[in-house]
């Protein structure tokens, strides 16, 4: 069944690191699968577990203080490798929204294609959100796709975020790009013919 995206209110998992690359989100040695399932177990594997496979206590995913389906990360989230496995891992773990002050281009597309909403906020909004979560780990954030707004419910401050109208419709109605492209086969053949 296709997912649909509307409004989410949730507590957050804070990851105040910058330039979190997709090798950290899912290391290369876990890319050998031929299906899309199960990558959440190895999300942030080498930050989350030590070399013997024991959970690293102070890593945020192992800290029961923090939970929720919104991941909040420092700027340039998802840099490096194009591996969509990173988006699959984020989704499989249970995140539906990632908030950052900017995303690497390929990873941003990968999130959108997997019904994870990348929300780009200003640096001050992000800094305040990290502070709110540090002060109260139960801080909730409301992400409203129809109105394209994100609200820090601890402070009441909100911002609008960008998403192109096409992708917004895809997320809202559970459509994917392949369905769109298949509906354009005639256009593609006509384009090829006049080339």
């Amino acid at each position: 069944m296709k997912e649909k995206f509307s409004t989410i209110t949730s507590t957050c998992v804070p990851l105040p690191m910058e330039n979190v690359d997709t090798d950290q989100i899912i290391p290369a040695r876990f890319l050998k699968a031929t299906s899309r399932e199960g990558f959440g177990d190895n999300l942030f594997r080498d930050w989350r577990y030590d070399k013997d496979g024991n959970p690293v206590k102070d890593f945020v995913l192992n800290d029961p203080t923090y939970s929720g389906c919104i991941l909040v990360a420092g700027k340039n989230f998802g840099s490096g490798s194009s591996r969509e496995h990173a988006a699959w891992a984020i989704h499989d773990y249970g995140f539906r929204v990632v908030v950052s002050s900017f995303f690497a281009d390929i990873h941003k597309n990968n999130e959108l294609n997997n019904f994870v909403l990348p929300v780009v906020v200003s640096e001050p909004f992000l800094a305040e959100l990290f502070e709110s979560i540090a002060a109260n780990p139960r801080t909730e954030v409301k992400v409203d796709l129809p109105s394209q707004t994100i609200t820090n419910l601890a402070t009441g401050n909100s911002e609008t975020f960008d998403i192109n109208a096409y992708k917004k419709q895809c997320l809202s109605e559970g459509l994917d790009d392949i369905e769109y492209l298949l509906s354009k086969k005639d256009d593609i053949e006509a384009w090829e013919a006049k080339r």
Partner: protein
Amino acid sequence: MGKTLFDKIWDAHVVNNIEGGPSQLYIDRHYCHEVTSPQAFEGLRTRGLKVFRPEKTFCSPDHNIPTLNQDKPIADPVSRNQVETLTRNANEFGVTLFGLGHAKNGIIHVIGPENGLTLPGYTIVCGDSHTSTHGAFGAVAFGIGTSEVEMVLASQCILQPKPKTMRINVNGQLRPGVTAKDIALYIIAKMTTGGATGYFVEYAGDTIRNLSMEERMTVCNLSIEMGARGGMIAPDETTFAYVEGREFAPKGEEWEKAVAYWRTLPSDPDAEFDREINFDAADIEPRITFGTNPGMGIGINDPIPAPDPEDEAGKISYEKSLDYMGFKVGQVLAGTPIDYVFLGSCTNGRIEDFRAFANFVKGKKKAPGVTAWLVPGSWKVDAQIREEGLDKILEEAGFEIRQPGCSACLAMNEDKVPAGKLAVSTSNRNFEGRQGPGSRTILAGPLVAAASAVTGVLTDPRTV
């Protein structure tokens, strides 16, 4: 107003523009490897679809293959399954495969150009961020995710928002001992690891213009390491001379027509870019990285800089990075003992890289404590190494040549740098654990790698 090289190619491939959304872009060439394609082929199967234009897709297993004993079954059953899945998918869907053991097998970004599959004016995609390599030919080439691989297989099109344009001009004479890799590492350090996000970059200026095709590929390859959607260089006589006569390149009358079209592609003199940046080639020294992203780079004799005091948020990541590497602010890394040297990858795995490395180590000996992995980018590169006798030079200096593949660049196979060990690597990423869990990577060009391999410490090639 004139158009940029990027705009000319992009605009010529737009099938539709979705109002308020992305462009539907037609793709001329699609490359596939074993790691990012299985779920895309499976998606086609689930939807009951065929590959729309199978003659435009070429596959080569490269990421997850051993670099020894490729004639034997792959020992790791999970890796073996992934490579065999690519073979099954290529056969079932009728796309061309240069499989393990094939004379044309190799790293996908090495074999595309060397077989004439990569051409100027093309739109080129692959489920791999280093697809930007092909921009060296004056193509719009960029990495995509697996859902997008499925789109291309299903429709030969992709939906993409049009990026902004940036021109990076490098002018002036390069100093001795400075390679194309050093140019790229210099630019990335100046731009930072995310500094070109949202942009498609054109490299220009006389320094770039004077580079060989292989050097241009090295520069364009690393565009993603500053976040750029892609990087490209206008096609010129150097480009045409490289492409002419290669197997899949146009021939005869078709060739003449193609060249005439390619000559129209360079950015018009009055074309405007969203950003334009200038660098002086004389400022570039042999480069190394000291941290855990490719933007954390310095000249080989420079001390590690302090983090930006204004950037409070960035400080945590910077300190974590230095802590991981075991380095300190102010430290000069030249002279630091090293454990591993890796020559290879889509960044520096071509014949000119092997020539540079071999010429440097000729008559010298590999330092006893150093493990060196020399991995050609393709079987064609391997054949040329042997034809030119570079294998003899390397063997006499104590080096062995392994079989082609991505190898220790991302360490999906057995070529893993052990935890804590320090590697000088000609590859493209120094991320935490990139070359194996706990491994520490210093990115450099082939000359720094060669100099360090013979001395056993991180070495400026101009001092040996």
